[in-house]
């Protein structure tokens, strides 16, 4: 009787444990093991050249003065903070900003490939958020495509004569949004719908992410403007030294 009681307690305990253990969430990144091996390898290879370029430009930056390195730490920390903040959105689900736009605008997109991968590794190893097998794919969306779009939009709108704060806002916001477009593409390529193929899958996956992501993209844009506002007041000299320099005077809102 006693052993029966004990074993039923044990079963109850295991059941409770099973129910309360968080299921691996793939939130905004693709969850561990959820991309077929072929695609996982494909995206890892696609990320590799950007990673190499990024390491090169980081090496170049290290010859600059130590204050520039401090700014580098700041943009890395910005991505670190923002990707930890899961924020509620209008759709009734949560998602998080990526924070890679700031660094892409200041240092160029490939530098953020390196820093973004560090953030993704941290989350994959310690938080079971994203994963090692899907690191390449997640890196491609968040640390390659997002920064490229942020940088491109920033430069493009600058050429068109937009005020600098607007370019920063649009660059960071659209970079964030595009990250999730790429995630949706990756998922729909790996899981084409039986009836409508890749396109049908894409519209399904995109509808999960897109609306949720819009307010977060706006938030990310606003926060990026805020930080550049502060930097262009306090670190004007360093911003002027950057290769991808923005004119510090105009950067202020």
């Amino acid at each position, binding site marked *: 009787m006693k052993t029966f009681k004990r074993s039923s307690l044990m079963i109850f305990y295991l059941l409770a444990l099973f129910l309360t253990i968080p299921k691996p969430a793939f939130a905004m990144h693709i969850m*561990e093991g*959820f991309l077929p091996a072929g695609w996982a390898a494909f995206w890892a290879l696609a990320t590799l050249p950007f990673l190499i370029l990024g390491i090169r430009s980081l090496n170049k930056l290290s010859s600059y003065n130590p204050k520039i390195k401090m700014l580098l730490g700041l943009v890395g920390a910005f991505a670190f903070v923002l990707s930890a903040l899961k924020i509620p959105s209008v*759709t009734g*689900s949560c998602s998080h900003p990526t924070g890679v736009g700031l660094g892409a605008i200041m240092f160029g997109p490939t530098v953020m490939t390196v820093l973004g991968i560090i953030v993704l590794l941290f989350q994959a190893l310690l938080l079971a958020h994203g994963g090692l097998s899907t690191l390449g794919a997640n890196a491609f969306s968040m640390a390659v495509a997002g920064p490229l779009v942020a940088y491109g939009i920033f430069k493009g709108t600058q050429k068109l004569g937009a005020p600098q704060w607007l370019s920063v806002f649009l660059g960071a916001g659209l970079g964030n949004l595009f990250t999730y477009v790429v995630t949706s593409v990756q998922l729909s390529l790996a899981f084409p719908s039986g009836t409508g193929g890749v396109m049908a899958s894409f519209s399904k996956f995109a509808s999960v992410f897109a609306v949720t992501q819009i307010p977060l993209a*706006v938030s990310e844009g606003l926060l990026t403007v805020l930080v550049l506002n502060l930097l262009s007041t*306090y670190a004007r000299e360093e911003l002027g030294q950057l290769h991808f320099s923005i004119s510090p005077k105009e950067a202020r809102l």
Partner: protein
Amino acid sequence: MSRTQTGHSNNFLMKNLLLLALVVALAVIPLFISKGADFGGADGKAEALISEINPGYTPWFESIWEPPSGEIESLLFAVQAALGAGVIGYCLGYFKGRKKRGD
């Protein structure tokens, strides 16, 4: 500090505070708009979609380590945010202090 300078820095502060307020509003408003929603991650939904499109798919790789509980997971998320915020605060504080000294 001259009068115009004070006016200018007040303006600067106001704009930055306004930006922060907007970000907070964007996070708070959804709580009222979608009352009663579960506010889970967009994750679960996408996961459900995968099994809908391809019911036979099973993940081929498992996380090496998972936070043993929701509390520990949120602890680690908080640590991540705190570390980042610390570095940002240190850098901004450094630059601000330097500018003040230089003025």
